[in-house]
């Protein structure tokens, strides 16, 4: 299993303009778009078939979600900064920005935790009604994606960052790829927020 003999692992192929991993992540993200697309379609399908659809804010806390939106958007920016630091060959700045990205992701999860427990305290569960079922399923799946992203980022902050010594070009690419995923997770939230909380 030697990856070193496989071409275009690091360098870009001339006629496609990308390396393998870059193409791979974009393909993966299209399938993720289909996954969340199916859930949003479900939302529409069930909503148009329901007579009294609740306004999201009657169950949910808009300020908390707005705060979370700020957290995630900021974390996307710091993620880009982490990658740019590597482009500038500034490893200590990379670590700083990566740490910040991770902390912001964790902050998102903490807020989400308080939101969920607040619902449970008021006896609002996924089974309570269709709206809450959708809310918990869609945000829950998104939370799992955030956790996945955090695990990847933590790996690249600590053990994975050894690659910066051995193969800086490849490490930089990896951070770019991780960044693409992280932006996608951010983007999903930017759709979830208005659809669930505001409409």
């Amino acid at each position, binding site marked *: 299993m030697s*990856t070193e003999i496989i071409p275009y692992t690091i360098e870009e192929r001339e006629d496609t303009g990308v*390396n*393998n991993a870059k193409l*791979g992540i974009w393909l993966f993200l299209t399938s993720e778009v289909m996954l969340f697309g199916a859930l949003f379609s479900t939302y529409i399908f069930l909503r148009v*078939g329901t007579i009294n659809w609740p306004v999201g804010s009657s169950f949910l806390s808009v300020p908390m979600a707005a705060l979370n939106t700020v957290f995630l958007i900021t974390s996307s920016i710091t993620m880009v900064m982490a990658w740019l630091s590597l482009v500038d060959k500034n490893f200590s700045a990379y670590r700083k920005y990566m740490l910040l990205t991770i902390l912001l992701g964790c902050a998102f999860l903490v807020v989400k935790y308080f939101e969920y427990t607040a619902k449970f305290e008021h006896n609002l569960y*996924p089974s*309570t009604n269709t709206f809450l079922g959708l809310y918990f399923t869609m945000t829950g799946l998104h939370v799992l994606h955030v956790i996945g992203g955090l695990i990847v980022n933590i790996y690249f902050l600590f053990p994975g960052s050894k690659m910066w010594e051995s193969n800086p070009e490849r490490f930089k690419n990896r951070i770019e790829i991780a960044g693409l995923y992280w932006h996608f997770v951010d983007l999903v939230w930017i759709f979830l927020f208005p659809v669930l909380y505001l409409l």
Partner: protein
Amino acid sequence: MIGIQYGLTSLIFLFFGFCLVMLMRWQLAYPEQPIPFIGSWFGESNAPGGIMLPEFYNQLGAMHGTIMVFLGIVPLAVGAFANYLVPLQVGAPDMAFPKLNMASYWVYFLGGIVMLSSFFLPGGAASSGWTSYAPLAVVASVGQTYWLFGMFLLITSSLLGAVNIIVTIIQLRAPGLTYFRLPFLVWAQLITSFLLLLAFPALEAAAVMQIMDRLAGTSFFMPSGLVVSGEVLKYTGGGSPVLWQHLFWFLAHPEVYVLILPAMGVVTEIIANNTRKPIWGYRGLVYASLFLGFMSFAVWAHHMFMTGMGTTISTFFQTTTMIISVPSIVIITTLFITLWGGSIRFNTPMLFALAFLPMFGIGGLTGLPLGLNATDIALHDTYYVIGHFHYVVAPGTIFALFAGIYFWFPKFTGRKMNEKLGKIHFVGSFICMNGIFFPMFLVGLAGVSRRLWDGGEQYAHAQGVFRYNETMSIFSWVLALFQLIFIFNLFYSMWKGKKSEENPWQSTTLEWATPTPPPHGNFEVTPTVYRGPYEYSVPGHPTDYLPQNQKV
């Protein structure tokens, strides 16, 4: 290597799935008679006194479908054939992501274990059909939860595999290998992988929601006021069973093309090689397949004409279904015309490939009445549908995959499979397959429902065709005997088969341009490609084949 692992595992699953249906065939042919010899193996809860209970029959049916499609054909057609052949045919050293490749195999394997283990649960395995329609599946026993988690693993595995195949084809093509010089099999795998990539997430989402319905009590697929066994369910309701069907078929229609496209690819390679002619209309073949892949996302609700989704929607999907038949016809016509005037070599792979054509033809043509609203009202959920899709998948796809195994066996092992045994296997399978599936059309036209545990014994309208049940069952058991010949041939030839040359079929494509087994990195030197894949019988060339990598 991983291709071979995929191949063996999926063959085992195929055989296991076949065994399940052979048991069902006993019950259909001889309702409520004890299963001979092995009846006592299944325990009092499944088959008291050796007589199969309806609940057990339903488990066997659901698991047969699931195993054949998701654990058998897809991993064989895509997992094994793409993994082994795509890197070789595009002249690549390996798949683009070898570690991901390994992961996708093991996730598939785990998914298989989860599915199989569900037989041992209280209440047994999933029993709501391979389609797991709600609300039945939501209120079913715990086996259904295993089914959902198992599907989740299988979907993950397919998605990883699809990304890997697409990247390999797009990024790792050898110098000179432009898109229109790709063997058609590679095209077929490329389109198939896109179908997997874009369609499977819908079922993933649906599985998440069915898990939520079952475990968290949500009502995504549960209508209001549902009463089961005289009790009102505690669900709040407001969901939609039809929603499940939409999401399921959004996957499962593209999925049927996942089952057929690699088969078409295999058949194309073998037909070109054994007619010693270029494929007639190679570009047409490619464009038709691209169109087919594209359209396959717009026909799913032809499985749902009877749900009352409305005449406008039905008309739309009936129209798209008629449109999608056109590229299928183009593909099969192309292959038929290729035969014209060829000096055909009738070896075992070619026999299977040739049989694929009319079998797929019957399967495809019987799909048309199903795609038309008015006729589907009578045919929906009868044995006619079972006949239709088995013709495309069993004597269709499975024959193509057999052809592929016989054809590339010398590449896998350096030895040839035994021709005589191969031909017996072919003739026997061909007769038996038709003996099983053709009567299904007759039974279905008489209106017999596809899910009856007693084969229609108690139904007045089934009396005229009931006797065919026995015929079909006997053919299915005889078919199994012929598969034993194949299994024997496979293992016998692996060790004792006749040693084969490096390019035993005098083929043009790159997988034969490297030693067997391929060395580390697949090729000793990266091949350069000078021409298209089917340069057979080129006028003026001394041999009747001109390999893609040969400079003249």
